[in-house]
């Protein structure tokens, strides 16, 4: 028996390289990319719709990549916001990867865009290990997922810098205290930012847009 030693090249090196290529390509075009992760039904699409409205009001041009295992429901909603959108069906794959995003970027008019939102497949866990090449990542949870949501996924939230706690209008109806989610998150990530929203009714969206620095300058990023 003998061992062959390896120099420690990352298994996901190919993914990291592809993500880096996406990052450089977007930077070269001066396009900011924000990815949105969260479980099924956490409110990713509605949140993106609201943010699109904010940046469109500033005269900025947005594109979206809508990923789902099947269908084009989210894509159709984004098109209704008058943005360029690409629909990606992952066909039962539980996460987007950088290669899929690269192909989707091919189909977006990057020369004319200021911002791209990438909505990942509804899934909190699996996308975490697959970098896409975006500048900013939002993890969204809904109060309907329970106020133990953060405690149940501590390693994810310990590494997440921006958490949106959505559907706070439903907190009373489902017996959830949003502040418990926020305080659990603060213990796991003392430098993270949590924003409470009710995206459907436009609550908290201004604060989120400020946190994302979508509104604070006259020129794009």
């Amino acid at each position, binding site marked *: 028996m003998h061992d*062959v030693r390896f120099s*420690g*090249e990352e298994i996901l090196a190919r993914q990291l390289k592809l993500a880096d290529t996406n990052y450089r390509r977007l930077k070269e075009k001066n396009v900011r990319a924000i990815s949105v992760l969260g479980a099924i039904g956490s409110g990713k699409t509605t949140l993106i719709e609201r943010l699109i409205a904010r940046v469109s009001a500033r005269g900025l041009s947005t594109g979206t990549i809508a990923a789902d295992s099947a269908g084009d429901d989210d894509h159709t909603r984004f098109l209704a916001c008058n943005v360029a959108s690409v629909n990606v069906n992952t066909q039962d794959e539980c996460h987007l990867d950088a290669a899929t995003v690269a192909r989707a970027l091919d189909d977006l008019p990057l020369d004319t865009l200021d911002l791209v939102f990438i909505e990942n497949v509804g899934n909190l866990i699996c996308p975490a290990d*697959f970098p896409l090449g975006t500048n900013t990542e939002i993890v969204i949870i809904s109060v309907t997922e329970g106020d133990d949501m953060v405690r149940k996924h501590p390693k994810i939230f310990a590494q997440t810098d921006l958490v949106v706690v959505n559907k706070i209008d439903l907190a009373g109806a489902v017996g959830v205290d949003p502040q418990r989610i926020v305080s659990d998150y603060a213990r796991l990530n003392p430098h993270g930012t949590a924003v409470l929203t009710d995206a459907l009714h436009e609550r908290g969206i201004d604060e989120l847009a400020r946190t994302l620095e979508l509104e604070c300058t006259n020129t794009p990023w």
Partner: protein
Amino acid sequence: MHEYSVVAELVEALLPQLEEHAGEVTAVFLKKGDLRILSERALKNAFEIVAQGTRLERATLEIESIPARVACQSCSYEGPAGTLDDDGFHFAVPILACPECGSRVEIRAGRELSVDRVSLQTAVDEGA
């Protein structure tokens, strides 16, 4: 269940690198950082399935955990990440803030996912 995707990348990347080495692969030793969101059991199950029909078919996947290490951006601390040992978590969760002063940190270790070494058995080994 993204472990399958990870293992598929592993097998695809490893096989060409083993072409220059003769023998039967008996074990693949993986280093996995504690900050990774990957189940060891799911990785091993996926490896059994993905390796079928390849030279890795009879190999076992051995996983070594690498603890998170951080470097503080404010004070001089560099060392193991602090952990949150909450009874409810059942394991210590690495916290990405300086355990000494609470400032922001850079991750120095804990995100690894790499092949450390591969064990091979050749006819010479058997004869020895």
